[in-house]
């Protein structure tokens, strides 16, 4: 049985050639890289691709779902989808749960009707590409995080009467001016700090190719 000593290691051979002391580690290292070059190249290609597929694609998908919203301060206007958009007025109607007195309404106690009038004026030279339009109310200050309301459909049950010259249908494809009246049923106190978001999309399916206008309500 041969006893391994530092001297024996120093006099070891690589591919039959005896190596001088000191050359072994460097040559052995170079040999290791040469032997494993192909797997290393494969690894270098596969690892980033895996990270991109597993992490990158979902993140990009989430980021691409909605465009960065354009915040439009009260009194200002924004241009999108061939129109100029302006919030003319907004209000909260606090529910009284019925009754006959002054200020009584059919809105249930603890809830409010939040309404906003959004003027849409066509711009000169606007294209006639069909655009879908969806309005929502969003509150980001609640204890459960972001909450979103869709417009009410049955306004009669709360005795809410629309303006004579307004519409609940947001249809910029007509090319005609209109005043959109959006009405939401929310818990009382939602109005301050909430925003009316108007999403405009050419495809109608996603907002990747669209615009998101955000109109803050309240003071």
């Amino acid at each position: 049985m041969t006893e391994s000593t530092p001297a024996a290691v120093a006099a070891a051979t690589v591919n039959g050639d005896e190596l001088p002391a000191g050359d072994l580690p460097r040559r052995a290292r170079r040999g290791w890289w040469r032997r494993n070059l192909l797997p290393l190249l494969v690894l270098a290609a596969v690892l980033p691709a895996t990270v991109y597929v597993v992490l990158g694609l979902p993140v990009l998908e989430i980021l691409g779902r909605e465009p960065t919203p354009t915040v439009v301060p009260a009194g200002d206007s924004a241009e999108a989808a061939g129109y100029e958009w302006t919030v003319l007025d907004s209000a909260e109607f606090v529910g009284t749960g019925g009754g006959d007195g002054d200020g009584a309404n059919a809105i249930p106690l603890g809830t409010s009707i939040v309404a906003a009038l959004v003027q849409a004026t066509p711009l000169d030279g606007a294209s006639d590409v069909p655009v879908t339009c969806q309005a929502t109310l969003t509150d980001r200050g609640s204890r459960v995080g972001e909450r979103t309301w869709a417009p009410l459909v049955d306004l009669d049950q709360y005795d809410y009467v629309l303006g004579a010259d307004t519409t609940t249908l947001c249809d910029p494809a007509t090319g005609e001016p209109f005043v959109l009246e959006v009405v939401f049923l929310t818990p009382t106190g939602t109005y301050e700090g909430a925003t009316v978001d108007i999403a405009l999309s050419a495809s109608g399916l996603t907002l990747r190719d669209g615009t998101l206008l955000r109109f803050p309500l309240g003071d």
Partner: protein
Amino acid sequence: MRRVSVGRALLGVGALAVAAVAVGLAPETEDIVRPFPVRGVQGERVEARTLGAEVEGIGAAEEVTVEYGFAPPALPTEGFWLVVEATVTTWKERQSLTYASVRVGDATYRTFSSLPAPALVGYSFDPGVPVTGQLLFELPDEALDTAVAEGIEVSFAAGIDPRLDTVAVVEVEGSDVELRPTIAIERAVVEGRG
């Protein structure tokens, strides 16, 4: 021929045995994706991830009459109707009560979904706005005795699929289940709370 030591052979057999036990003890796929119940009792609001639900009353009837909308005025059944009065509130976005069921003994019954709108099933709940209405379940006669003796569990969930999500489960005493000739079904309404 290469010889294998007895120790290695035993180790291999042991590893196979451990693997067999692990496979045997592994839960079924249905158990893995089962909803997580958040439990409460009648009269208290039970809060799941997507909604809160409170059961205010329960009744059983041989026939129900629908007092609103375009529906046959009376709904007969071969068994009996279990009627659950409940208030439901969603939290974050407009959602519908897509899943409601009662558990009686070992059996689970889904809610009757053909009531005219506005009913609790199919209602579009606005976040933070509680809605009160009735859920209707058609049960076989033999379930009545079990319900009275053991009580029932009413489950509520919003969203398309309750699996891997929390579900509000309300336990109701069976003594409250009393069979009546008829129960009137009213439209679901927003519950005003001062």
